């Protein structure tokens, strides 16, 4: 398996790629927060937020529609919001009966539903862009600078580092299960749900032991290289005037979006 199967980073040398990861993280979170603060039905503001996203895409060198195309993977989530349609009081638009409940679609509910879908669509795209233009170790380092406790960022760094290795291990386990799960033509093989769950449980236990023992070897190797509880990095992460300029521009744009949304 290719070790980059999970990597969402796209290598380029664009303005956005060179931007300090701290600025990128803060701006992305501010953008998502700003979307959440916009009132329902603030179409102008949603439009502006979308424009911000397209500008960010342009700066990233990945193509204007990059995050738009990617966002469809995450869109099925939006359908979960369907319950909003029936739960906000307002003028009834249509009514139907399903199982033991009465559902009434209201105008306010419809407005809230469309607003939520747009907001979370915008937010997902920003998150997609963030990991596409920032190397994951840089991202973790940025969070460390932003005062996320070191033990958490270290665990996340290890998770990212060994995810690929353990995924390979899972692939081997799954392949082993598949190769032993042959069935004669027209005949059922294996047992019921309980039996299948037990096999999966044994595989999980097996993976657990392999991971546990691997972590021992990793620790010994780290000790051998002088590990003393601190992970070091060569990346200086300095903020330049250019980074501040981008941050300022982004915040002014977000403030303007809020202003348009509320007044």
């Amino acid at each position: 398996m290719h070790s980059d199967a999970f990597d969402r980073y796209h290598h380029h040398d664009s303005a956005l790629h060179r931007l300090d990861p701290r600025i990128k993280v803060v701006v992305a979170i501010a953008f998502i927060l700003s979307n959440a603060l916009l009132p329902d039905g603030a179409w102008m503001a949603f439009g502006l937020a979308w424009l911000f996203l397209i500008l960010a895409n342009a700066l990233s060198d990945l193509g204007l529609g990059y995050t738009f195309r990617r966002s469809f993977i995450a869109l099925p989530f939006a359908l979960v919001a369907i319950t909003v349609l029936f739960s906000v009081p307002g003028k009834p638009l249509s009514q139907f009966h399903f199982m033991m409940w009465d559902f009434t679609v209201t105008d306010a509910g419809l407005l809230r539903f469309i607003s939520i879908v747009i907001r979370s669509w915008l937010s997902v795209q920003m998150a997609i862009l963030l990991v596409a233009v920032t190397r994951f170790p840089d991202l973790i380092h940025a969070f460390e600078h932003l005062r996320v406790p070191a033990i958490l960022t270290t665990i996340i760094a290890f998770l990212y580092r060994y995810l690929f290795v353990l995924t390979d291990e899972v692939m081997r386990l799954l392949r082993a299960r598949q190769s032993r799960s042959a069935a004669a033509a027209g005949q059922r093989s294996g047992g019921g749900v309980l039996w299948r769950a037990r096999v999966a449980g044994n595989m999980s236990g097996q993976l657990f032991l392999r991971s546990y023992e691997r972590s021992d070897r990793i620790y010994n190797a780290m000790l051998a290289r002088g590990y003393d509880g601190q992970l070091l990095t060569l990346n200086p992460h300095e903020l330049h005037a250019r980074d501040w300029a981008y941050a300022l521009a982004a915040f002014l744009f977000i403030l303007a979006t809020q202003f348009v949304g509320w007044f």
Partner: protein
Amino acid sequence: MLYSPIQPMHIPDNFLSITVSLICWAITIITLGVAISRTNKSLGERQVPLMGVMAAFIFAAQMINFPVLGGTSGHLLGGVLAAIALGPWAGMLVMTAVIAVQGLLFQDGGLIVMGANILNMGLLTCAVGYGLYRSVIGSNRTVKLAVIGVAAWLSVMAGALSTALQIWLSGNAQLQVIVPAMLFFHAFIGFGEALITVAAVLFIIRTRPDLLGEGTESAQGGRGWILTGVLLTLIVVLLSPFASTNPDGLNRVATDLGFIQSAQTASGPLAGYTVPFLESVSASKIVAGVIGIIVVLAIVFITGRSMQNKRGLNTQSNNIQATRPPIENRKP
């Protein structure tokens, strides 16, 4: 393919109101603060790579699926297994890392609502699972495994219930619809979780009994965990039927607390985003949002500071002890 993006308990951004998201963040940050200080105290530096690889294990183990019915499949969620294998606090940190990476890297769950996601899928599952496991830690294998199964099922139900309540408190679903719907689906998911967790623990007990026995991290949790586990279990068991059959009472409470706007004027701090002395609704909404953000930032900052101080001290003491790696009680 390997990583299925649709998991019902991962809440995306903007599905919870800002108020609910911030409250969940506050609870999560406080709990994690305690977890970090406890793990820093009890675990050596050796445990950091262990927790990291275990986080990767939970992530990878979620890919081991088995067919259930008509094309659907079950897989491990891992909260209870992590808590049992590593101890409750370390389990919480590991689950937090898993959920953070799912949200950050795969957009599986939002960033602003990540506090809620960590609370539902990481903290609650570990607390319920470990609490019940801790209460039978001295019993024989059959009792232990049975309780672990029940704990795994209940942990999923607790997460589902709290997710449903958060969505309802945000005013985005009706209580009498969202609670039964979430609990119904997760009753099946929890069943799969229970089966896999029991099988995995049984496998570990058979092959490496030393990992779960006396004197390991998993046996170190205090008796307070039993109380926590039983209390959370009672809440889940009692609140679920109440919420789905008699929603009016809870609706009333939520309205009074100002989460759900209704025709009556709600009172309470920042009720329905209105700050009392400000006339214009929209301006006061902004003020309420800003106050909420400041409160959370203050909590983050203060916890971060105290963590760093503690960590600084700890690293020093670790440096002194680093010549004695605690590996002598491990078999090759």
